[in-house]
């Protein structure tokens, strides 16, 4: 698996898109710091961008990479290699190279701005950690979609749909439910609802660390009580880990049964 990972990573590190992605984050980091002139504020703005963009890029890149390397995968399948190691290697290659673009692209401008001397370093690290988690989750989901769909167009369609669902539609439905059932105590429900969507979970985690939870009103207080504690933090990260594990497990499962 490590060999496949090495070569996939190497291949991607030389692809133009990795550089475009890297350059985009670099530019975003520089522009935000320049406009905000403040590390903490830049982190908040960045969060809003990352929370939506990272899943999108992870999904599209994952699907694209799978379909593009299909014939090569077939060549690898004819080698004395185990199937799960081929697909996990490729998956990790994509996810890690995307994560690296994210970390370096955002890290470099922030470090030059004086990140290490500022108090925002923990917030910023949390931002990057959730960014990496989102990359791992959505690339794995993308591989799942691609493995289940031979048809490229369908695969891309489902991938975009998945992103739309989790990044936008979920929030809408969630909000509607909250409005619809506003007469009932909803703090538990909203807590669970937030946990079930990795994008919402990441957003809440960062928001609460940024100490702007007061803006969230009563629910914010409940959230703060939960996510603000160590227990909440551990539970949240466990949920994120589960979100990575489940699609990865399905990649292994599916790849063992698939015909090429």
């Amino acid at each position, binding site marked *: 698996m490590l060999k*496949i990972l090495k070569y996939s990573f190497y291949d*991607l590190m030389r*692809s133009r898109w990795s550089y475009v992605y890297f350059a985009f984050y670099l530019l975003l980091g520089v522009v935000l710091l320049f406009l905000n002139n403040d590390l903490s504020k830049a982190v908040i703005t960045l969060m809003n961008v990352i929370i939506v963009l990272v899943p999108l890029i992870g999904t599209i890149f994952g699907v694209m990479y799978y379909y593009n390397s299909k*014939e090569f995968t077939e*060549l690898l399948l*004819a080698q*004395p*290699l185990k199937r799960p190691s081929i697909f996990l290697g490729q998956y990790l290659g994509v996810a890690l190279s995307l994560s690296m673009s994210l970390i370096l692209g955002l890290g470099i401008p922030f470090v030059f701005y004086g990140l290490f001397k500022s108090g925002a370093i923990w917030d910023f690290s949390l931002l990057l950690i959730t960014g990496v988690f989102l990359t791992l989750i959505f690339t794995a989901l993308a591989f799942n979609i691609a493995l289940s769909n031979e048809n490229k167009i369908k695969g891309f369609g489902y991938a975009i749909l998945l992103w739309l669902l989790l990044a936008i539609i979920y929030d809408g439905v969630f909000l509607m439910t909250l409005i619809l059932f506003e007469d009932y105590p909803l703090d538990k429900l909203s807590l669970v609802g937030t946990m079930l969507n990795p994008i919402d979970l990441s957003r809440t985690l960062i928001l609460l660390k940024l100490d702007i939870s007061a803006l969230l009103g009563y629910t914010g207080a409940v959230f703060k009580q939960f996510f603000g504690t160590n227990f909440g933090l551990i539970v949240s990260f466990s949920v994120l880990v589960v979100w990575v594990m489940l699609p990865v497990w399905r990649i292994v499962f599916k790849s063992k049964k698939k*015909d090429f």
Partner: protein
Amino acid sequence: MVSIENLHKKFGKNQVLKGVDLSINEGGIFAVLGPNGSGKTTLIKSVLGMVIPDKGTIEVQGNNINKSSEYRHKIDYLPQIANFPSNLKVKELIKMIKDLRKPTNEEIHLIELFKLEPFLDKKLGNLSGGTKQKVNIVLTFMFDSPLIILDEPTSGLDPISLIRLKDLIQAEKAKGKTILITSHIMSFVEEVSDEIVFLLEGKIYFKGTIQDLKTKTKQPDFDHAIASILTNNHA
């Protein structure tokens, strides 16, 4: 070398293989023929473990291949379509496949044979179809495995490379290896193969030498013999 028993495979509603029984002895060149959609590629991919059969067993050198990957050390496979990661250079790809399988020096001779030296530092994405096929051939033949499977090996090759490929196949045969070939080019098959296996509608219709086939179908040449099978069976 390879023995296949009662192999069934269905893709959706399409029953591709309907109980294939085939045993291939060690040494010699075997051509797998059949009309489009007769299950040639499915059969070959089942032997490689790329397609997972619904029913039946496949043994390579006496070992059941089910859920194993080690047996593929004994197989060299040339896929039909060669498409490699476009950002890798030719020599990096060769190095990578060697790294994944085992060290060998055989590629030096093959690169020379197919005149690939000028392309070694080029990225795979910039190569023409024929050159990619040559790289593909180098990757296949550089490991000295006892079983070689070639899926449409002639596609995209120029006449000189085709002659070299034929020589290469004969040289491997002389070493006592077993070679499985699928091809649509009948003259190529007639020239290189010792025995043919004819698949029709998911079953083995005929297995034997070309001479046997001619006698069986009462046709003077190979092309017509194949054509007569197809017309008689309305395939």
